[in-house]
């Protein structure tokens, strides 16, 4: 397969922890290119340095490279520029929302305030929500609670 075909295939690889979104939708895939030595290289940026899914992402990408006829393909991690939730695509945001995870707001915005209006509740739409726990079931999520319907729900925090 040529590089464009490999890129198209790589872009379908799902995130191990949030399989409703692809790594490309998350903005984790930075580039797919062929080096001077004709080795295909996928450059990826880690979401969080301690994200336990990083080794799985790498293994999944290697598998795809091998399936595309590039068993010697490389997966390279690039820390800079640092990953930001602003790189999550529109499709990625829609997918998160469809699965009950409130997508992140603007990464430049100040961190959540203690009182006031929060992210809209995915169950009833109320904005009378407040932080419940700063970390959720994965490192990239936080837990909010809706004071209207009393449901708690995950929110991907903006970084």
């Amino acid at each position, binding site marked *: 397969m040529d590089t464009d075909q490999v890129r198209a295939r790589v872009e379908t690889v799902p995130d191990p922890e949030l399989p409703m979104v692809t790594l490309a939708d998350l903005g984790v895939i930075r580039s797919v290119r062929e080096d001077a030595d004709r080795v295909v290289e996928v450059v990826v940026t*880690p979401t*969080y*340095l*301690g*994200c*336990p899914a*990083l080794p799985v992402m790498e293994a999944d990408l290697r598998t795809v490279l091998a399936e595309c006829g590039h068993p010697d393909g490389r997966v390279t991690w*690039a*820390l*800079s*520029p*640092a*990953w*930001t939730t602003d790189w999550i695509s529109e499709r990625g945001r829609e997918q998160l929302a469809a699965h009950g995870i409130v997508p992140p707001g603007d990464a430049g915005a100040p*961190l959540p305030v*203690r009182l006031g209006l929060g992210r809209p509740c995915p169950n009833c739409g109320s904005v009378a929500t407040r932080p*419940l*726990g*700063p*970390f*959720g*079931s994965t*490192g990239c999520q936080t*837990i909010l609670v809706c004071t209207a319907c009393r449901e708690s729900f995950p929110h991907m*925090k903006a*970084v």
Partner: protein
Amino acid sequence: MTSELPDTRNRLIAEYALRLGDDALVLCQRLCAWVTNAPTIEEDLALSNIALDLLGQARTLLAFSGRSDGTNRSDDDLAYRRTEREFRNALLLELPGGDFAFTIARQLAYTHYTSLLYGQLAASADEGLASFATRAAKEAEYHCLHASQWTVRLGLGTEESHRRMQSGLEHIWPYAAELFEADDLTTRLDTEGTAVAPAGLRAAWEREVTGVLTEAGLTVPAPSWQATGGRSGVHTEVFAPLLAEFQSVFRQYPGGLW
């Protein structure tokens, strides 16, 4: 051609990264002890997620250190194959659990320090340190928020939570001072724009932390002494048992892989 000795500058950078990596690794191990013991299930998740972030930071720094010093040791080599005297963490990070307020007091001191440190280190002339710090600074911001919120909650909570929070602060304060200790290594790397001399962070740190303590109705401690020794490998007596537990699986199954 004979093999070249790694140049001095790279060895200094490696030593610097090792200090920061050891701080994160040792605190990660201490925080893990809270899992299933924290006051609420949300707090179990928060502390374990913070520990996980610290583990990721430690692995990045240790791997970078092993590459920079010319030994090509991996993060595992450095975490599991060193003895007590070879660890460079500040003593604050190895202090035993204490109560929850003590843990929050330590988090408050450390996270405000790393948030400031990584924020400045992101402009380092060394690409490896700069790219690490850009990422880690974002993580530290959340850890800061967590520690600050708990400090206010405990400070303004009940008489007992206030008493414990103040007591935790009194306990850790002399140790927090070690984070800002000046020495030749950081001074030299700071001069050439590679590292951040921690002494220069102290004033901003005191402003930030004092702000939180004031909001929490707590008093800034005024200790009569200052801890030292961690950066040169002289640790407290609690460090050997911590390391023994941390390295036990690796030692029981040498060469074992996931």
